[in-house]
């Protein structure tokens, strides 16, 4: 069925919905990084790189809380 064209901001995504008769001809595959055996979509690559960045940030960014980790007042849990 025909749907309205949907545009997203930024260069990454332009999506146009079409009837399936035009499917093979008109729909372009997304952007891919093809290096040797590796064939990964730019989107997936960004997701994985983003995850690595978040992981590293989680390790290095300071966590709010008492600077001094000496004995706390309060019962043993």
């Amino acid at each position, binding site marked *: *069925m025909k749907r309205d064209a949907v545009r997203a901001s930024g260069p990454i995504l332009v999506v146009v919905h079409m009837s*399936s008769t035009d*499917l093979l001809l008109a729909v372009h595959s997304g952007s891919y990084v093809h290096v040797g055996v590796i064939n990964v979509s730019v989107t997936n690559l960004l*997701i994985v790189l*983003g*995850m690595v960045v*978040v*992981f590293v*940030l*989680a*390790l290095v*960014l300071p*966590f709010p*809380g008492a600077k001094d*980790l000496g004995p*706390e007042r*309060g019962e043993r*849990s």
Partner: protein
Amino acid sequence: MTALRTATVGEAEHPSTNWTTWLRGRISGLVPPGQALPDRQPAYVVSWIYVFGVLTLAALVVVLVSGAVLAAGGVAWWHVSSLGHFVNSMHLWSVELFFAFMVIHLWGKFWMAAWRGKRVWTWVIGVLAFVMSIGTAFTGYLSQSNFDAQWISAEAKDGLNAVAIGAWFNVLNPGQMLLWHVLLLPVAVGVVTVWHIVLVRRHGVVPPLDTVRGD
């Protein structure tokens, strides 16, 4: 008037054969007293890496809620309604976030060797939750009733048929796949998730490596 007693009467004389008493004991013994929802954590729990478990859980909630709205609309709703399509988008992106947070959580737990101190089972159940989530997402892709679902089912059947699973779990049958996706697998993932969290609360957050007793 006699108040209901929860203490077992006569326990000293003989062990209770009361099933309710037994179950109560098992449930209350799952987690040390006060540890189901403690308001304190060990002093070494000060790192952003610790938030990825709860982020995974939060993402799972968004997945379930957006999925419930999709279920309320029915199989074809998101194809014909722009609101339905938006809810589908929420469902897709919450799943991407769910997996992203879960994998970062796994990375963190690996580098902390979080299976130490009787926590092997916590790790095992966690990986089980990961694998079952992949299966759940898979049945979701099969339930899209669009080109993607057609292609994924046509390809996946070969993998599953090669090891005889396809004879029972028919990926070419959207009716079956949808029911697995909406009911059977989410319940199973839910059970495994609860089990995982109970184990975490039971043993507490793993102490730092090279910490000795009495430190």
